[in-house]
């Protein structure tokens, strides 16, 4: 029988193509695994069985005829619940969208399905993707499949946990400050954030529009490359999606890394980095050196200002984006009996519909945009964002890519950081700058065999140079065996 935990996109498609298993039976096998395994983990919020089985049936007809399946034909995947799926409940992890049925598909979802993927369901996440532990979901926390006492990371916690636990071959997540790479590191899977504009955000429920990215979480780097190839490219429905041509990431994976200059930013190895994470990341750097990369010490001097910049820019944009949730057009509406005026209805709806972290960020964002504080906070943060971008511009004059830890520590325990929002925010210290600057990044597992928990090494590259990032990640993955 097929081992669900070791399937890749390619091996899953091949088993369906060669009729080792039907796409329908493969989907059913995953649903059975979800039914038992997800009781403890809670990665899924909604299952889209009808849609999945209809798609699987279509793929089976193709395979039965002996025709070649599309690239992801019959492969079971799942989607973070911040992306619209037509006819399927889409909650963003929030009470305010508890009964929202999306009327259209996000482009990334539509492209996966057009490539033959079978969409099993929607994945738990922090409410509106705001969080680093998945504990901010209105539907309850996700647990880390590697250790159920620990968080899977966030906000794409369900997306990482589902892949780690063998409840989907690959998933989509979203990354605004580290929300793909940090949970990937915590759960021991691959998580890729593409360049800003590489993947259409049409149908993504917006958190911070200048920072939001959609990307894949997978078991292997090659799977990340194939998922990215499938969802990337210009979309007329998203003006911020880029015209830049999408290369063949799979073909470019095998190109040698010898001679590539890899920067090691010293600010990412300073105080606060757990010793076991440092050791594992240094091992990964050694693997690249052995493969012929030139390791170059570099500096990104403004690194420590990235988190405060992020919490101004992201919350300002969030306060504006989340203004649409007012109980008028969709989602929860506070009981008409309580609200006598329109404004009272807005306020009560939002009070009842949003959780504590979302309210905190809306309040902070509203404050930094308010009269008298706009220049001191919002404009100031935008200027510092320019300085952060310049750090990377000058570093990329010297190097082709950078290698850093993905997170300062391994997965922490549930409840451990709940009381102090600031200490939770510091979890994103190594991931957040790439979102602000718009460059691609990946987290790949790199823990030593003796490490009890997964550790992720992060590779960052130039704008639209996902190929180099994937190639280096593939080299690390391959060299570890």
């Amino acid at each position, binding site marked *: 029988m097929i081992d669900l935990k070791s399937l890749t996109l390619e091996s899953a498609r091949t088993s369906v193509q060669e009729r080792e298993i039907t796409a329908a039976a493969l989907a059913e096998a995953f649903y059975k695994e979800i039914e038992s395994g997800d009781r403890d983990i809670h990665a899924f919020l909604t299952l889209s069985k009808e849609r999945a089985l209809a798609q699987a049936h279509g793929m089976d007809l193709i395979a039965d005829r002996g025709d070649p399946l599309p690239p992801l034909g019959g492969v079971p995947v799942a989607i973070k619940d911040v992306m619209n799926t037509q006819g399927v409940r889409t909650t963003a992890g929030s009470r305010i969208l508890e009964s929202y049925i999306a*009327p259209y598909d996000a482009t990334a979802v539509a492209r996966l399905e057009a490539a033959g993927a079978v969409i099993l369901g929607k994945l738990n996440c922090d409410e509106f993707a705001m969080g680093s532990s998945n504990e901010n979901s209105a539907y309850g926390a996700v647990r880390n499949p590697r250790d159920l006492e620990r968080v899977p990371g966030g906000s794409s916690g369900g997306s990482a946990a589902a892949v780690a636990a063998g409840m989907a071959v690959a998933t989509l997540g979203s990354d605004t400050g580290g929300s793909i790479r940090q949970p990937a590191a915590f759960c021991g899977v691959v998580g890729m954030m593409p360049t800003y504009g590489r993947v259409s955000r049409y149908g993504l429920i917006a958190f911070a529009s200048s920072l939001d990215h959609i990307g894949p979480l997978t078991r292997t780097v090659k799977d990340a490359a194939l998922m990215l190839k499938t969802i990337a490219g210009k979309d007329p429905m998203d003006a*911020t999606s880029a015209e830049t041509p999408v290369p063949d990431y799979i073909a470019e994976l095998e190109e040698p890394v010898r001679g590539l200059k890899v920067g090691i930013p010293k600010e990412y190895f300073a105080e606060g980095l757990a010793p076991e994470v440092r050791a594992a990341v240094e091992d990964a750097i050694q693997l690249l050196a052995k493969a012929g990369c030139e390791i170059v010490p570099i500096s990104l001097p403004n690194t420590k200002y990235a988190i405060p910049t992020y919490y101004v820019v992201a919350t300002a944009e969030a306060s504006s984006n989340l203004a649409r949730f007012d109980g008028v057009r969709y989602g929860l509406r506070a009981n008409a009996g309580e609200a006598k005026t329109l404004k009272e*209805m807005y306020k009560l709806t939002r009070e009842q519909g949003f959780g504590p972290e979302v309210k905190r960020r809306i*309040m902070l964002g509203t404050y930094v945009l308010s009269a008298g504080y706009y220049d001191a906070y919002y404009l100031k943060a935008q*200027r510092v964002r320019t*300085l952060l971008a310049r750090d990377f511009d000058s570093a990329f004059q010297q190097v082709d890519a950078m290698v850093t830890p993905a997170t300062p520590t391994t997965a922490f325990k549930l409840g451990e950081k709940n009381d102090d929002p600031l200490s939770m925010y510091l979890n994103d210290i190594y991931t957040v700058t790439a979102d602000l600057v718009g460059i691609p990044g990946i987290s790949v597992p790199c823990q030593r065999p003796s490490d009890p928990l997964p550790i992720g090494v992060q590779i960052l590259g130039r704008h639209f140079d996902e190929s180099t990032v994937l190639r280096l990640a593939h080299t690390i993955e391959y060299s570890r065996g």
Partner: protein
Amino acid sequence: MKITREVVDYVAELAHLALSESERTGMERDLNSILGYIDTLNELETTGVAPMAQVASRGTEAAGESLRADERRPSLGHGAAMGNAPQTDGTFFKVPKVIER
């Protein structure tokens, strides 16, 4: 302390949030703590540095270059657009009365 109880109430009003008493207390504490951290940005001299609102504005792709042609095309149908309305008469969204007369 930058954020007093009055500021919390004022911002909550701007943000259309009807915060409870305990939420207001928590918000005062948390916002002060986070803003204290954000104030580290003032260590940096940024006079003459252009603000960055978008990644695209820094030349990775010229802003506006990727706008699609402004042509008429079908949009989401009325039925689908109204499908999630909490309260509707079938044509419009219904809300509490806005103008008293």
